[in-house]
């Protein structure tokens, strides 16, 4: 295979990962790592390194739109980054001593859990408001965002901010370990634990993912796991996909997206698991 064809294939992979990632509030690593290892036969450490770079691209591209549209809560993002960055550094350090086989199995379990969590996600209207949280009051984390679908500005209050912080540490660990944005954990942590509206959770998750991934990229870079021939085309595709998808977010029926996501991710999880144990 010539480098040009290889590059174009990686570019296409990036567009798909970045587009789906931005739509679902995830980084897109859940597509990049399995595709690189299973379809392209790339070593998993190099695949994770490339995935981290493309996750940063997707996150930054999507964040441009979400910050402009006042969808992401930057104060919550900055606060929770304390935990995700600490977690990401721990995870990246642990990954270097783990065998590829173990990485496959952990990846498969996280993917399967994500598929179930996304498929079962409830609408915020159907949930009770979060309990009062003095910590969130003091940090003034509460906010508002314009909801185009409901044609009004929605104000919201934040609860269980310390539980959110703890969950974000775990999300950070997985991010560093697996080269994913771990938005599949970030979104439920904000959505379910802290009581944020779905759209704010998705946008803020996208916003934070870049910082989490940057923290583990330093470790992968030093280890020689960032191959630019691999990372750059996927990142470019990811940027393009994210820029388009972040504008389409309001028009795509969320329920369909969730079902497709759950099915695809579950199928990938099974494949990764088989590869890990066989």
């Amino acid at each position, binding site marked *: 295979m010539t480098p040009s064809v290889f590059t174009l294939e990686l570019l296409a992979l990036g567009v798909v990962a970045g587009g789906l990632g931005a739509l679902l509030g995830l980084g897109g690593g859940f597509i990049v790592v399995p595709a690189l290892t299973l379809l392209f036969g790339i*070593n998993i450490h190099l695949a994770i390194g490339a995935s981290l770079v493309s996750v940063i691209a997707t996150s930054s591209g999507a964040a441009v739109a979400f910050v*402009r549209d*006042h969808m992401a809560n930057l*104060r919550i993002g900055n606060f929770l980054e304390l935990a995700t960055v600490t977690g990401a550094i721990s995870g990246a350090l642990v990954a270097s001593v783990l065998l590829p086989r173990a990485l496959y199995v952990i990846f498969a379990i996280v993917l399967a859990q994500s598929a179930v969590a996304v498929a079962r996600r409830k609408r915020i209207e159907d949930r009770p408001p979060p309990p009062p949280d003095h910590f969130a009051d*003091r940090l003034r984390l509460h906010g508002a965002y314009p909801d185009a679908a409901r*044609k009004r500005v929605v104000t919201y209050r934040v609860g269980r901010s310390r539980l959110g912080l703890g969950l974000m540490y775990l999300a950070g660990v997985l991010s560093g370990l697996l080269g994913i944005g771990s938005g599949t954990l970030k979104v439920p942590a904000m959505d379910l634990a802290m009581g944020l509206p779905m759209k704010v959770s998705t946008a803020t998750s996208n916003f934070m993912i870049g910082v989490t991934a940057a923290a583990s990229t*330093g470790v992968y870079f030093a280890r020689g796991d960032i191959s630019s021939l691999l990372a*750059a085309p996927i990142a470019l595709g990811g940027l393009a996909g994210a820029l388009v998808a972040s504008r389409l977010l309001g028009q795509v029926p969320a329920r369909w997206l969730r079902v497709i996501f759950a099915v695809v991710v579950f199928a990938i999880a099974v494949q990764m698991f088989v590869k890990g144990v066989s």
Partner: protein
Amino acid sequence: MTTDASAPGHPLAYEPPAAIRRLEAAVGLVLRAGVAVSSVLMLVGTIVTVTASATAHDARRTVAALRAGAAHPAGLPIPRNAGDVLHGLRHLQGPDLVILGVILLVLTPVARVAASMVVYATERETTFVVITAVVLALLLMSFALG
């Protein structure tokens, strides 16, 4: 661009408080600049790497090694530290442009944390200055780990 607030995906005319607006403006600017500069470098660098005669042969070897599942692919060298990167920048061939682009991309989220810290400082929000300073320090530490 349409101003119809009922259009799907289009934001309503919503003005956040002034402090949030300033924060969003600074962060948005850093993100746009980082994404633009790094993507141009990665795009130009990748095209040059796979087409220029000086690097095309090594690029072919790297791709073959990658497809074979190598953990340390032969061909184009993979920089591991600031010294390797600076060394490459003196020659500035295709791969060096790509690496510079990748590094700027990775630094973009770091730069937007720094931008938030500056905005919080001008707003005298001590708690958030401390929070962003710690995040920034951890990020820099992670780059120094290698």
